[in-house]
């Protein structure tokens, strides 16, 4: 009997807490924050090629769920492509961030301008 009582109480507690926490999220988050964590804390496990692969998979999942890609993900992806030297994919991802979130325009345009200036210097 005491065991049953505890089990009931534990279940009730879980339900009540779930009631406080449950909410519909706007975005699908996938691996984004874990990748940021790993890039800082265990860099070996999150090189840019791996991150690109996981973020692209997340973007597909978000689209499959009919959810908008979360703020920052395309910009992070654009940065990773730049690290890999894939300039056109980098620009495309940055533009996508800007299209989804016009709030990013100043920052993204600044980065694209500096990238352009660097290219010109190298020529």
């Amino acid at each position, binding site marked *: 009997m005491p065991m049953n*009582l*505890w089990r*009931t*109480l*534990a279940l*009730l*507690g*879980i339900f*009540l*807490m779930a009631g*406080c*926490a449950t909410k519909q*999220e*706007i*975005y699908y*988050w996938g691996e*984004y*924050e*874990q990748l*940021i*964590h790993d*890039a*800082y*804390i265990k860099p070996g496990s999150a090189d840019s090629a791996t991150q690109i692969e996981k973020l692209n998979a997340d973007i597909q999942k978000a689209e499959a769920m009919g959810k908008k890609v*979360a*703020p*920052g*993900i395309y*910009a*992070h992806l654009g*940065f990773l492509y730049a690290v890999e030297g894939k300039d056109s994919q980098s620009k495309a991802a940055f533009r996508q*961030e800007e299209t989804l*979130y016009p*709030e*990013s*325009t*100043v*920052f993204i345009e*600044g*980065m694209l301008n500096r990238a352009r200036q660097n290219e010109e210097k190298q020529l």
Partner: protein
Amino acid sequence: MSNSIRLCLLFLPCIILIASGCATTTPYDYTAFKKSRPRSIVVIPPMNNSIEVNAPYIYLSTLTRPLAEKGYYVFPVFVIDYFLKENGLPTPAEMNGIPLDKIGEHIGADAVLYVSIEDWGQKYQLIQSVTKVHATLKLVDVKSGELLWDSTAIAQESSGDGGSDLIGMLVMAVIDQVLDSTIADPTPRLARQANNAAIDSQLRGMLDGPYKPSNAKE
């Protein structure tokens, strides 16, 4: 006394305690926040007053989601950190001193979230270990420099206690289940709990941003 009545009496304080956990105390003054109505937030890598050297970047990795889910555009935290480092600011201490007009000019954010970590990580005590996450958050308007919102994100859990405390046991039961499927470091999970509690608090949480569906028409 019948069993069912006894059961009800056991439930009652439990429900009251848990329900009171969802609400907080005094209402917050949102005058500046309502006037500013920021759309975008840049999170500056946190200052660290704890002894855990990894705390700032572990914590930074947990802040995008709750802010974006609150309806704000959140600048890509890793890219911003890289950008600041490239521009001669190698550590969070220096990054926290950037003049607001520079943030406006180069990042274009409406608001800055300044974070200071006060305590972080696991401490071993006599018969148990206690893990703590404790940070202060300050949201500042980039154009006016006014404080829009501030709060404390705090969470803690201990292992080895719970024998006498009912709520503790309930929480532990849930936490143990979660732990089974996650990595050993509990601080990111605790930080997420702390962030959600601070940002979503009914009475002194952040106001909804423009991407929050219920807020879209305002």
